[in-house]
């Protein structure tokens, strides 16, 4: 490994491992060392790696990050920035990847909800996490995360429990002495016929250029229902690499809504395995890169059971020199008869230098499958723009109004009305900034 990134990992990781939560548990130590060795052997994905075709890591490769933030507990975070309309339930806050009890809200958890910092859980009952932590990781960032993640979320919902008030998970980047890398992991398990609403927020508390990785493993037992909202407003210098891996048993259903606004280089890989009959996975989202932002979302949806359904509806809006990527892979395995798979991705380019790559990939090995996909890239409707301006709306306001309207289809299905309107408002607020970036 000759690049600065891998050299820094090699120099710091070995010394860090004995101090990570869960260190000393033999199988965990072994797994972490194996992941580290694999990372150091293969490094970051090369340019020719098909999965990284649209996202170059060459600049990242030249950067050496400190590992973790020893001062995370003392970083100033505006508690007001953690308040989200429609999310007044329990809250777990991480600053530079480290759990912050003082900012979290874990009193009076509803019956049937187990929610704690993963570091605490690993120190207590590591064995129950063996399946997740012992799993193989194939991607370089997964390996890095599996090696170094010591904190994060452990969330379990008991069979039959309904957690109505959304659980709020906040990941905040805060300025530190140097740019650092943090690695967090979320383990989320929904018991049979349980229901959970979840909000994942990414924000920042001042200028920084940290790298964060977050791997979330989500398991839904039979008949469980999960409503997950992502609000990604990481700081303008942040690099954020996430994987959210869902596994759904029979009759389980996931509905997720994502708003990707922040960060410099952001990638979110969403994998969903519909393991058994009638499992259902709905994803809706908006990504809006501006300036020189690079925002990639990757969907990898696998239909294994019969009569399973997936429905993906995404909107992209790129301005300035922003680059958006949506890779949507849907696989219907042999025997997964009766599957229904829909994928729609419409995109808007607001400037001549902006770019959006949309790549639907459907692979179907079963019979009696309903599948459709559509992807478009276009500009704002000039007639509509003129109509709005002729009524008195300034050009920028008219553009923002039409752009938000274009994206609404991806947000309108969110049942939590205060949260839905908050997302729409955040998007609208993001847009004038986009317009400003065009001139820059």
């Amino acid at each position, binding site marked *: 490994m000759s690049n600065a990134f891998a050299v820094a990992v090699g120099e710091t990781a070995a010394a860090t491992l004995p101090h990570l939560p869960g260190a000393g548990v033999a199988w965990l130590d072994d797994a972490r060392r194996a992941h580290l060795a694999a990372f150091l052997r293969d490094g970051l994905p090369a340019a020719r790696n098909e999965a990284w075709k649209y996202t170059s890591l060459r600049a990242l490769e030249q950067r050496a990050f400190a590992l973790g933030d020893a001062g995370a507990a003392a970083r100033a975070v505006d508690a007001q920035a953690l308040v989200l309309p429609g999310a007044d339930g329990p809250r777990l806050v991480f600053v530079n990847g480290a759990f912050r009890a003082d900012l979290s809200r874990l009193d009076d958890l509803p019956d049937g909800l187990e929610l704690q910092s993963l570091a605490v859980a690993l120190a207590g009952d590591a064995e129950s996490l063996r399946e997740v932590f012992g799993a193989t990781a194939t991607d370089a960032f997964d390996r890095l995360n599996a090696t170094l993640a010591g904190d994060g979320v452990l969330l379990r919902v008991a069979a039959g429990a309904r957690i109505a008030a959304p659980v709020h998970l906040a990941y905040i980047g805060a300025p530190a002495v140097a740019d650092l890398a943090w690695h967090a992991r979320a383990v989320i398990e929904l018991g049979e016929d349980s229901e959970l609403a979840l909000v994942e927020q990414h924000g920042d508390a001042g200028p920084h250029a940290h790298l964060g990785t977050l791997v979330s493993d989500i398991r839904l037992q039979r008949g469980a229902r999960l409503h997950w909202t992502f609000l990604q407003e990481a700081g303008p210098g942040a690099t954020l690499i996430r994987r959210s891996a869902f596994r759904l048993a029979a009759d389980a259903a996931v509905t997720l809504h994502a708003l990707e606004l922040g960060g410099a280089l952001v990638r979110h890989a969403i994998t969903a395995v519909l393991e058994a009959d009638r499992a259902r996975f709905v994803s809706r989202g908006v990504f809006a890169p501006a300036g020189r932002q690079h925002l990639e979302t990757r969907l990898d949806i696998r239909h294994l059971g019969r009569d399973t359904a997936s429905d993906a509806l995404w909107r992209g809006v790129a301005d300035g020199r922003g680059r958006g990527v949506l890779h949507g892979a849907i696989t219907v395995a042999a025997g997964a008869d009766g599957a229904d798979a829909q994928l729609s991705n419409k995109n808007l380019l607001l400037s001549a230098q902006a770019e959006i790559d949309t790549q639907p990939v459907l692979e179907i090995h079963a019979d009696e499958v309903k599948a459709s996909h559509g992807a478009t890239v276009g500009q704002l*409707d*000039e*007639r*509509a723009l*003129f*109509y*709005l*301006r*002729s*009524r*008195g*709306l*300034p*050009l920028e*306001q*008219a553009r923002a*109004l*039409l752009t*938000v*309207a*274009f*994206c*609404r*289809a991806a947000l309108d299905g969110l049942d939590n009305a205060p949260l839905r309107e908050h997302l729409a408002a955040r998007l609208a607020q993001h847009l004038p900034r986009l317009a400003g970036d065009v001139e820059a």
Partner: protein
Amino acid sequence: MLIIDNLHVRVAGKDILKGLTLSVKAGEVHAVMGPNGAGKSTLGHVLAGRDDYEVTAGTVTYDGANLLALAPEERAAAGVFLAFQYPVEIPGVNNTYFLRAALNAQRKRRGEPELDSMQFLKLVRERLKVMQLSPDLLSRAVNEGFSGGEKKRNEIFQMAVLEPKLAILDETDSGLDIDALKQVADGVNALRAADRAFIVVTHYQRLLDYIVPDFVHVLADGRIVESGDRTLALKLEEHGYAWVAGRQPAASAA
């Protein structure tokens, strides 16, 4: 209020208006009639500020200033309103929200205080009495799924809320049945005022039975070729546009 002098306009490389001259004073209602392709809709759009319409010669003076130098939203704030022949459907934008944003943007530009939602709602209720429009249309997306008549009534309703000084109605009667036509005309007549002028662009005399104009102009091949009082519209109805075809442009169309 409005002085159009020798206006030449090119659209998509084709000359459409070829020396149009027209003068409109506050309080007046001018009807502009003409056959298809004469340039009627171009006139409305160029006054409202469509930037893909190229003015190759001539001037438009509005309240003493060069109207052509203003952006569409500046013209709107200055009191120019175009009721579109084909109102645009805008999915995802709420009709009421849009109208309030438009009114407040105009007021802000004019240095007037913006209306809060209560004040705006009161205004909307008042104006709804003038223009019979089903209140549920207000909560829908702008023009989306509206019938032809509903779209036209929505245009007049917007006009009633925005209270322009110069309103241009571009074939507002097209596609309307007689009941809808009367409703639209009632809405317009309720807004007639000493400080407000109308340019009513139409193909048919029928609308002018309900909106009685002070002046009628015939537009043919990009110019005003005949001007007169409302009896001119009746003559046109009787003789058809062939009657004016081939006539020289009126020496000084007023």
